[in-house]
């Protein structure tokens, strides 16, 4: 069978750092080919070479039988390749349809054909099962919807090679389902799909073949049937990993975080509140999972608690039994709250600054008594924390934008651990993190809870939510619609509660025990 795409002997370096060495990859028509590997293995780099982002590589790329060399993104798109990059590449201030047609606006006599483009954008989004206003600015959409716009954009190119670099890391279950339906349809049409993901159950749901990279080297390619999960993990990390979710429940202490009647008002002019009178509590050493679909208000709840919304929030908050006001993030950090946001690029990191500066940003006063920085103490503390997280980086003074996605996530985690929080609000802490590092983050969550930290966890990965939470609250349209003790919940019950079916008698049961 002729290959759609063959990449051979690919080498790539950034300055003195070699990130790909003798890598090969091929793609057949009508297949989903998974590209797997740890954070920093070089998956995104390989795909960026294919996308014409990095023209200075060595090696050969063949499309069909024809050797090609992409010098620009346009070249690659012209060759029928369409890529959804890991880090969203939309223009925030432009509308949905303008983003979809960016760079190839339809026009007649150089007048832009807005209506045509809008209709086409609506059709594409409808195909993805989305109905959204194509004229909203992308930056006003939640990150999951932005991701869907990105997918719609990639599909609009009518390419036969489609690369998806961790497309689901910002999506919730129903959206993922839709995406998989689309992938199935693309397969039927004969397209080849390269799919990068760190989510095991996803990989086995759609994989035809799997290729593994480790430290920039090619490890092997196998069909999904012949590469069971344990072997795949072994290929990726080079060692055996056992148990996937190692939650050891710690002894619960007193109520650490007590929220009552928290309301986050909607944006100016919107009467519907984002979070509507939510009450919850978390004990010292407890992990409370907060489930909910896009728009359920779970992320907004965390932001509201943390003070991001300032005066738009009402309700009362107690930490360790003492009432504290909700003011602004700086105050919250001082009171022992830490919020890891779900979008590291726009709200988590200062991409142009180096690793140390990012990791110490939230607790800089600690490293600068009387205002003077203590770079040595700072670097020592940061490198210790990052070692625990097994960060893979050339040096601590490289800008975080040159790190792989998963390693960037570790830097954000490090930033919040450095603040010695009492309550950790984690919004997708394992987004884009590889299996090995996920294990480490779970272990760290265990350690933190053992040390008495209270954790609220939002994650779109159901198995992670089920396994790591001691208690699960489900939100729908700003309300808590269900509560489950650890072990009681299943994927189905959570999903139905997230879709708005209040489970009677379950709500607020904790108030009585």
């Amino acid at each position, binding site marked *: 069978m002729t290959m759609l795409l063959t990449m051979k*002997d690919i*080498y790539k*370096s*950034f*300055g*003195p750092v*070699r990130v790909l060495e*003798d890598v090969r990859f091929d793609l057949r028509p009508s297949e989903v080919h998974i590209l797997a590997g740890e954070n920093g293995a070089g998956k995104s780099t390989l795909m960026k070479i294919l996308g014409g982002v990095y023209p*200075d*590589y*060595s*090696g050969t790329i063949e499309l069909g039988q024809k050797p090609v060399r992409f010098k620009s993104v346009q070249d690659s798109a012209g060759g029928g390749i369409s890529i959804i990059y890991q880090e969203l590449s939309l223009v925030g201030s432009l509308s949905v349809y303008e983003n979809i047609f960016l760079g190839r606006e339809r026009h007649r006599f150089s007048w832009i054909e807005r209506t045509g483009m809008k209709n086409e954008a609506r059709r594409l989004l409808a195909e993805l099962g989305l109905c959204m206003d194509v004229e909203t600015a992308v930056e006003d959409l939640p990150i999951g919807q932005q991701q869907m716009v990105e997918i719609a954009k990639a599909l609009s190119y009518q390419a036969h090679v489609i690369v998806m670099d961790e497309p689901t890391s910002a999506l919730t279950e129903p959206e993922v389902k839709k995406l998989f339906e689309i992938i199935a349809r693309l397969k039927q049409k004969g397209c080849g799909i390269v799919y990068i993901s760190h989510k095991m159950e996803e990989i086995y749901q759609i994989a035809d073949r799997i290729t593994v990279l480790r430290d920039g080297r090619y490890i092997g390619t196998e069909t999904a049937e012949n590469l069971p999960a344990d072997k795949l993990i072994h290929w990726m990390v080079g060692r055996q990993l056992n148990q996937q979710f190692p939650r050891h429940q710690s002894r619960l202490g007193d109520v650490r975080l007590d929220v009552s009647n928290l309301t986050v008002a909607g944006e100016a002019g919107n009467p519907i509140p984002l979070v509507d009178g939510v009450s919850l509590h978390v004990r010292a050493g407890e992990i409370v999972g907060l489930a909910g679909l896009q728009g359920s208000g779970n992320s907004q709840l965390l932001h509201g608690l*943390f003070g*991001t919304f300032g005066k738009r929030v009402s309700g009362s908050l107690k930490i360790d039994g003492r009432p504290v006001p909700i003011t*602004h*993030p*700086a105050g*919250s*950090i*001082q009171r022992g709250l830490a*919020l890891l*946001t779900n979008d590291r690029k*726009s*709200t*988590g*990191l*200062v*991409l*142009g*600054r180096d690793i140390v*500066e990012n990791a110490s*940003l*939230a607790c*800089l*006063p600690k490293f*600068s008594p009387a*205002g*003077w*920085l203590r770079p040595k103490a700072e670097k020592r503390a940061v490198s210790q924390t990052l070692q625990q997280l097994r960060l893979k980086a050339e040096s601590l003074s490289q800008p975080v934008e040159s790190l792989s996605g998963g390693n960037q996530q570790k830097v954000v985690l490090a*930033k919040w651990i450095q603040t010695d929080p009492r309550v950790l609000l984690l919004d997708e802490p394992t987004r884009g993190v590889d299996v090995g590092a996920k294990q480490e983050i779970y272990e760290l969550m265990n350690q933190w809870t053992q040390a008495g930290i209270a954790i609220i966890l939002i994650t779109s990965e159901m198995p992670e939510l089920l396994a790591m939470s001691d208690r699960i609250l489900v939100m729908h349209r700003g309300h808590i619609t269900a509560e489950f003790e650890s072990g009681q919940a299943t994927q189905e019950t959570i999903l139905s509660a997230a879709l708005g079916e209040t489970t009677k008698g379950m709500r607020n049961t904790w108030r009585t025990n």
Partner: protein
Amino acid sequence: MADKLTQKNRMPEWITSPTSRALAALIVVFVLGLLFHAEGAFYKWGTHRDMLRAVSVYGILACGMTLVIITAGIDLSVGSVLALTAVLFALTTIHWQWPFWLAILFCLAVGGVCGGFSGYLIGRFRIQPFIATLAMMVFARGVAKWVSGGQKISTAVQQPDGTYQYVSVPDIFTLINAKIFGGNLTVVTVILLACILISWILLTRLRQGRYMLAIGGNEQAAVLSGVPVNPIKILAYGMAGLFSAVAGICQASQELQGDPEAGVAYELSAIAMVVIGGTSLQGGRGSLWLTLIGILTIGYLEKILSINAVGEDKRLMLTGVIIIAAVLLQKNK
């Protein structure tokens, strides 16, 4: 073949670092000076000393501008604040005969408040820096004209009967205008160096400087990390105002008068110095060393053109070309 390619990419880091790129522009200008030395004028230390003196006032403004640009802002008001403080300095020392230290403190306070207020507007009310400082630029110019009555404040003091009488130049003017180290350096140059040092300490040694870089790099992430964004913005613009006052005092001393029309378009020179050094207007990166290199590049360029008696028309055209060339040099690839 693979290795050849990767070899080619192995450019030593010091060649591609921003500092060496900025230095390259300076060296090119310097070599031009060595070639067009105007009958050996360029080989004399006096030429370099005068260059430093001429560039000092702009350089002092560029220090504050660097801080502001690093927070992803801009300050258009520095030239007007310079004029206002120059007028106030001349007025308080010459006419009102305040002790020099009081006059200096007063001018610094006025400059700091002007800048800090712009910073407050920008932080608290989210007015765009361009607009807030544009308003301050117009306002401060107005105040300068109002307090001076539209006149240059010089040692010719108008008497009640309408006649002018010359008073002696206050010592502080002579002091700031003096040459030291056997006539090899001017005091204004020393003041410039002090301003660079202070800004450098602020930016690299103090927490506040780190916060400026973080705000410029990603303001939202900075807010969520507990960075006190508004106070830091007030500080950055306040420092720019403070340095404008320093420059105003120097300018008044050099001209022996306070001119309400002084400093027009100086903000543009200051911005040019910062960007020639390679600090990006996007914010989040930059350093005082780069600005120092930018200051010297522009200073030498102007000096070389003037010792070769190139007319102002061509001088301006060439400066424009050099700015673009230097910034292109900063670009990756």
